[in-house]
Structures are given as structure tokens and as C-alpha cells.
């Protein structure tokens, strides 16, 4: 663990704590003995080859998947004991491929508030669109007419409309073209800084992890095989698997693979 992470862990009690979490699906172990903390304002990158369990790990946090053992604590309380809809409102999520119902951008952005009986004002909508780098002229456009990158920004604004304290990003750029990737990455960084959310970013792309240059969990076959600053990890691999990952020898760790492909 690097110093920065230790410091923030001391000043801020963990918002999310995972303790010895396991997860199995159809009798097959997907995740095994996962433990880590995430504090408010912290950004954590989960890096690993396809099929290493990254998405499953992320989806356990807002209980889109259920863990089979261990604990997942949110604000110090076991997530199983919390009301699931409340938990999910506080933990925003952006998926690999944005799937938005056919409607205007404004209607889509207002989905979260509408689900619990509130109306997103035009002003709030404009603020959110501004935050994700879309002008307020986008508000009345149909989402079908947008590019994938623009849809992904709308998806981000949708998640932010609930004012989440945790943001889960599940390979949010893997369906995008290279320029859109950088734009979204910068957007994630600026949102993270401005809103001080606890952010978890899942990626299979080593270069993306390097660009974020944050505390990184390296996942392989459902286990965390390394944890710490990505640059440090690369310079001093803690074991053979880590070294092989950075040399692109673990399956699909190669950053040259085409975007959008998964599993």
C-alpha cells in the first residue's frame, strides 16, 4: 500500500469495506478471499485480464450479484441488512455499454430521482449535463441520436443525479473509440475531484490503469494478487504472476487488444 492510501485511510473511515469476500456462480468460484477498503474521495482501479472476476467484484458492491461468503460493509453496515433500493441510490454505477431507454436526454438523466418520486429540475439537469461535458442543448435530444461516447456521458449524468457517495465504473470506456476514451477518462477524474466520491474503476487496459496512476488492485482468477500504486507495482512486481501480467503473458493483459471485446 502506498503512503497516500494509508494517509487517506487514517483520516477518513472506510466508506466501503470488503472482508474476505467470496463469490460463486453455478458452483464455480468467481471471487476468493477479496478484502479491501475504500474511503470517501479515494479512487481505486481494479485491473485484471478478462474473466478474472473484476466485473463480478464491482457488481457485488451494489448487490447486482450476491457474494457467497465474507462481508461487504457500506458506511460500517453489512449491505445485506440495508434496503437494497436505498443502497443502490447511494452507489452509482456506469456499465460497459450504455443502455438507455428511448427518450430525451433530460428524461433519462431524471430517471434516478423519478424512481423515488422526485422531479429533476431543468436547472439541475443543465448542471449535470455540464458536469459530464454535454451542453444544455443536449437536454431535449433523443438518446438514440447520440454517439456511444455521448450516451456514456448521459449514463454518467444519470448515475450522478442520485448524488451517490460511491461511483462504480465497469469498463466504462471499452466500447468507445480512442479519442472518446481519453475524454471520458478526464471526465471521470474531474468528477472524482469535484464531487469527492469514492470511485472504483474496473479496466482490463493496463495503459488506462497507468493513466489513472492510482491505487490498483490486480485481480487474477478471482484473487487479488497485488495491491498498491500501479507504477510501484510495475517496477517491483511482488511475485511471478504480477511480473507476467505486466509483460502481457497472463491472458489478455495485452493493452493492444481491440476495445469492446469482453470475455
Amino acid at each position, binding site marked *: 500500500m502506498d503512503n497516500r492510501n494509508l494517509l487517506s485511510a487514517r483520516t477518513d473511515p472506510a466508506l466501503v469495506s470488503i472482508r474476505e469476500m467470496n463469490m460463486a456462480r453455478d458452483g464455480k468460484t468467481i471471487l476468493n478471499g477479496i478484502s479491501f477498503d475504500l474511503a470517501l474521495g479515494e479512487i481505486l482501479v481494479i485491473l485484471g485480464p478478462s474473466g478474472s472476476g473484476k466485473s463480478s467484484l464491482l457488481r457485488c458492491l*451494489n*448487490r*447486482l*450479484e*450476491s457474494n457467497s461468503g465474507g462481508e461487504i460493509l457500506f458506511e460500517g453496515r453489512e449491505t445485506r441488512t440495508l434496503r*437494497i*433500493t*436505498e443502497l*443502490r*441510490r447511494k*452507489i*452509482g*454505477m456506469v*456499465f460497459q*455499454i*450504455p*443502455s*438507455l*431507454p428511448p427518450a430525451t436526454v433530460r428524461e433519462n438523466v431524471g*430517471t*434516478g430521482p423519478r*424512481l*423515488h418520486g422526485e422531479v429533476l429540475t431543468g436547472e439541475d439537469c443543465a448542471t449535470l449535463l455540464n458536469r459530464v461535458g454535454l451542453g444544455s442543448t443536449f437536454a431535449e435530444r433523443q438518446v438514440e441520436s447520440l454517439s456511444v461516447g455521448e450516451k456514456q456521458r448521459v*449514463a454518467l449524468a*444519470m*448515475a450522478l443525479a*442520485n448524488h451517490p457517495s460511491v461511483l462504480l465504473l465497469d469498463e466504462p470506456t471499452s466500447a468507445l473509440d480512442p479519442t472518446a476514451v481519453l475524454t471520458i477518462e478526464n471526465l471521470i477524474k474531474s468528477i472524482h475531484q469535484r464531487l469527492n466520491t469514492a470511485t472504483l474503476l474496473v479496466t482490463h487496459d493496463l495503459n488506462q490503469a497507468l493513466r489513472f496512476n492510482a491505487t490498483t488492485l490486480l485481480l487474477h482468477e478471482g484473487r487479488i494478487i497485488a495491491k498498491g500504486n500501479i507504477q510501484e507495482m510495475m517496477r517491483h512486481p511482488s511475485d511471478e504472476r504480477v511480473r507476467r501480467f505486466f509483460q502481457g503473458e497472463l491472458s489478455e493483459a495485452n493493452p493492444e487488444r481491440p476495445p469492446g471485446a469482453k470475455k
Partner: protein
Amino acid sequence: MNTLSLVFSYGLVVLALLISWWHGLRMEKEMVLSSLRATVQLIVVGFLLEAIFKIESTGYLFLILLFMCGVGGVVSGNRGREVPASHAIAFAGIVAGSSGTFAVLFWAGVIHPEPRYIIPIGGMIIGNSMNTASLTFNRLAAELKHQRGRIETLLALGADAGQASLDAVRQSVKAALIPTFDSMKTVGLVHLPGIMTGYIIAGGSPLTAVKYQLAIMYMLGGAAGLTCLAVALLAYRRCFNSDLQLALRLRA
């Protein structure tokens, strides 16, 4: 029509057999088997109905209707295997749709509590309910799978099962009602329904036949509407587990 003329009318099937043989269509075996099957089935049903129409006790009639609903539940439930507890849901939907329709028909005096009304009309209502239930399942499972990304997006925003699957439920109800209401639109223009044809052939006046046919159309519409609503509303909840995750079964 005497029995001999019926035997002669089988000559038409023989004609079809000859055509098949002549052109090498190799459908002779299937033609013979299916025409024999239809003959045996209908004769058995005829004798059964003769016996059933002598039943005085409404309790027995009720059991027969329940049996029909049970068969419908199994057939339609098999269609919806991806939805947990699909057989129970199909049965409940068919019972709800047909009993609701029956209640109105009795109340309005369209049918009387006599076997010769209850059994054939019950068969039509339950059969139509079964088709509607199957279509509802089929479309609901397909929509939920197709919309998985959108549904998970909604769930992640804090939606409950009803909010997340609202569009899928709407689509499946709409799709399940299309055949019933399309046949309402074209009735008399494209085809004369069997029951009307039968009534007219048996010597009834066309206007009385139309009256019955209308009542039947309304009742089929009502049964279909009630059934698909019941099935869709019972089924969508089952497609989400207690953690509000989309949990469709994989097709066996």
C-alpha cells in the same frame, strides 16, 4: 348427414393421399396418421360429451373445468420455463381469466349453468386463456433478456422490480393480446368463425348466430385481457430475486 356420407367425405383425404403419392411428396404416412388421429380424438370427445351432458351435479362440472385449467397450466407453463414457478402462474392466470369471464357471462344471462353451455364455452375460454398465457410468458422472458442492460441500469439507480420491468411487462401484455384483437377486427370479413358456421348449418338463423358469436368474441377478449394481465403481473416479480437481481432461469 348420415354416417355413410361422412365415410364418403373421407374420399377427399384419399384424393390428397393420391396427389402426395403421385408427386412423391412422401406425406402419405403423416396424412393417414393425422386424419386417423383426428377421427379417433373427435369420436372419443363426442362420447365423453354425451356422458358429461348427462351430469347434473355442478360440482362435477366444476371439476372438469378445473381439469381443463390444469392441462392449460401445464402446457402454457412449459412455454414459460425460464420464469420460476411458471406452471403455478399459468394455472392461476388461466383460472383468473376464465372464472372472471364466466362470472360476467352468468350474470348477464348469456349462458346458463347447464353442461351443454358450460363445457364447450369453458373449453373455448380456457383454450384462449392458455394461448394468451403462453404468449405472455414467451414475450416477457424474451423482453427481460433483451432489455437486461436497461433493466440493470434501472436497478442500479434504485428501481424496484416493477419499475425496472415496466416496459417489458407492457410489451408482453401488448403482444399477447394482438391475436385476440386482430381476429376481432377481421371476424366476418376474412373468415366466418366455426361456431357461427356450425349454428347456421344446423339450421339456426344467421342473426342469432351473430348474437352468439358476438358474445363469444367479447368473452374471449375479456378472458385474454384478464389472463395476460394476471400472468404478467405474477410472473415479473418471480423474475427478480430477493436481492432485486434479474434471475431468469436458463432454458433447460
